[in-house]
């Protein structure tokens, strides 16, 4: 179970998170939605120690990991994998070698053995026959799937997806959504998905939390979001231009 | 290896073509229209390079005198000829060349980074959509500004180097300033050769760097690669020009 308690974070004089509290139950798919610049990715990066909160607490299965140092966070990251928006594969290696890297570093496997194990993970995301190719010459959708496979090599209990379906065409997006659903149903993986893609939100989410003005504006099930009378949520869900939502104004 | 050679020849042909275009634009009166940008570039290049040239040329002056005096001490303890010989060498060779290399590093990579990021963010395409030719709008101001700045910075560099040399000679071997600062060895040939070098470097560097910038390919690694290429090509051009001009001034001016 992951718990954020009253997280604050500011960059210079721009306060991005103003006291965010959120609980994510085991085995669930928790979506975090909101307008761009609302601090969704910032919150996720706190969980794996890529960013440190100004104040507030983060609990992982009851253990307070807020002030752990980089070394300690390596243990946390073995249990919480992160899949980034730009599916950050290493260009100098083939897709199979990308997936094999964590196996080589953490399981102590030789280069060859790691490649064999990597093919199994690639099969899970049905990318087995693209193993020899390089990231540069495959499309965004395929790269995203390999990034997910690479995250899975650490057999994580939790997976954080940072805008998995942004900037890729609808077919690839639907594919990624199916994969997220499969992870939760077949492997009991708890997923935190950051997105502003209305289509995948209602196709996949178990629970949704909306970030607005640095706080959790509404935390509930997809049905609660459909029936809510809150004008801000209504405008975001229907995605029409007019409405009460203000936008992060001029920076600086 | 041959592929690299072919690529090198191909890129130098394009660089010559860019030089031709730049000169054509200047002849068609681009300078009048681009006055504001030329002044801005002059300030930009000069302002950002002065501290850099001071540190590098200053240390060069100190080191050279320090090493030479330590050597000469072993052979002939007469230090009178050191000052003038050092000044002549600075004016003729070290001043313009090392300053040229520093300008290639500082200004060259700056031009490639700026133009490269304008290509990656499609600003160059936007310019072309408004019928403004990137060569006229971006390259000409930098070409003229760098030509002028390079000569001025080289002269400044020589002064700093000589001053630093004199101070070192005085501190470590108390060579009085009067004996150091004698220009009797310096002839017009040396000054001409030094200025010629500075100007050639100043005109070659912006063209080579702008060419690298304009050839930037997409993606985030694009700008990084073209900036690297600019630094390497510009620095190498300085060394090659140095060899050609040194040979030329040795054979012709004497």
């Amino acid at each position, binding site marked *: 179970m992951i718990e954020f308690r009253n997280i604050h974070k500011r960059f210079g004089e721009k306060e991005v998170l103003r006291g965010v509290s959120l609980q994510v139950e085991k085995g669930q798919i928790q979506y975090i939605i909101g307008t761009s610049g609302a601090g969704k990715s910032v919150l996720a990066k706190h969980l794996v120690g890529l960013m440190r909160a100004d104040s507030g607490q983060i609990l992982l299965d009851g253990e307070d990991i807020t002030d752990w140092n980089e070394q300690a966070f390596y243990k946390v990251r073995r249990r919480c994998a992160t899949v980034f928006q730009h599916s950050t594969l290493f260009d100098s290696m083939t897709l199979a070698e990308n997936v094999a890297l964590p196996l080589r*570093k953490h399981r102590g496997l030789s*280069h060859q053995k790691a490649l064999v194990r990597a093919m199994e993970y690639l099969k899970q995301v049905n990318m087995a026959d693209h193993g020899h190719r390089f990231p540069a010459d495959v499309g965004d959708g395929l790269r995203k799937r390999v990034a997910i496979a690479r995250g899975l090599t650490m057999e994580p209990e939790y997976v954080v997806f940072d805008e998995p379906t942004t900037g890729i065409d609808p077919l690839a997006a639907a594919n990624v959504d199916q994969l997220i659903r499969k992870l939760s149903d077949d492997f009991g993986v708890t997923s935190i998905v950051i997105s502003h893609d209305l289509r995948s939100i209602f196709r996949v989410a178990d629970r949704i939390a909306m970030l607005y003005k640095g706080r959790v504006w509404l935390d509930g099930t997809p049905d609660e979001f459909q029936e809510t009378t809150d004008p801000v949520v209504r405008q975001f869900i229907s995605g029409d231009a007019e409405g009460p939502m203000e936008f992060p104004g001029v920076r600086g | 290896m041959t592929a690299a050679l072919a690529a090198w020849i191909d890129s130098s042909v394009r660089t010559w073509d860019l030089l031709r275009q730049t000169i054509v634009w200047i002849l068609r009166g681009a300078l009048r229209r681009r006055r504001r940008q030329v002044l801005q570039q002059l300030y930009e290049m000069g302002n950002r390079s002065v501290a850099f040239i001071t540190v590098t040329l200053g240390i*060069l002056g100190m080191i050279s005198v320090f090493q030479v005096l*330590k050597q000469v001490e072993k052979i002939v303890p007469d230090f009178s000829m050191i000052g003038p010989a050092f000044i*002549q060498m600075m004016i003729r060779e070290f001043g313009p060349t090392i300053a040229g290399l520093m300008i290639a590093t500082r200004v060259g990579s700056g031009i490639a980074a700026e133009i490269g990021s304008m290509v990656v963010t499609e600003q160059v395409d936007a310019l072309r959509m408004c019928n403004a030719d990137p060569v006229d709008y971006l390259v000409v101001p930098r070409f003229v500004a760098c030509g002028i700045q390079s000569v001025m910075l080289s002269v400044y560099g020589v002064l700093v180097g000589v001053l630093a040399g004199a101070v070192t000679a005085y501190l470590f071997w108390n060579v009085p300033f009067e004996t150091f600062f004698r220009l009797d060895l310096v002839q017009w040939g040396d000054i001409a050769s030094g200025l010629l070098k500075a100007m050639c470097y100043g005109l070659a560097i912006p063209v080579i760097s702008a060419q690298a910038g304009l050839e930037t390919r997409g993606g985030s690694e694009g700008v*990084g690669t073209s*900036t690297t290429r600019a630094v390497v090509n510009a620095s190498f051009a300085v060394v090659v020009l140095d060899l050609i001009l040194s040979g030329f001034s040795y054979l012709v001016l004497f």
Partner: protein
Amino acid sequence: MTGVMARVGRITINTLVVVGGMTTLLGRILRSLFPLRCDARETWRAFYKVGVKSFPIVILTALFTGAIMVIQSGHYVHKTGATSLLGWAAGFAVFAEIGPILIGLMFSGRVGANNTAELGTMVVTEQVDALRSLAINPTAYLVAPRFLAMTVMLFLLTAMGDLFALFGGAVTAKFMLDVPVWIFLQQVMDAQLLDEYLLGLVKGTVFGMSIAVVSCYYGLTAQGGATGVGRAVNASVVAAAIGIFVTDFVVALMWGIL
């Protein structure tokens, strides 16, 4: 007036932040070198890339440096007729002073700038964050192999570069000053420049380390998309050049004291 003071204050603070950042980076690199904890494949790749990329351009530069040195010292020989000094003047300048600096500058341009561009791109596309999220230490995995590769490679290149410079010098001496090649080389040997040759090698190694730390630092601190990478490379080559001259000065001073 206060504007100028503020600017001077800001510049000093920025410089201190940068120098501080580099020293901590050097500390972290050394900690992952003793005991050797960097990745074998990545180290081999770094050696290959650094070596292959820099070899042609550095050797060409060395050849030209030798030639230029002979031409320049040719003036004195021409005036004073003391051809015997030619070998000494050229050899000394190449070994101790101009050789290492020019080779270092070319190396910094070719390999240092490339290193910053590569690391900067990896930072900007979140690949370094990906490494950290896979519980792999970026300093040990990315930076230490490059530090090793650049230090060893520049030492070798300076050693070879000096020889190529002498060769360039000998050819030019023959062509320009009709000094037969073996006489020129004989003069260089007689001048007992072994001391300078060693100084040049020490400088080469120290330059390699400083270029590695500078280029990795600016690579890892790149921000703001593709334009950020361009700015990082620009700052990196400038800092590397200053680094070369400052370390050159320090080494020359220390060498003088020993």
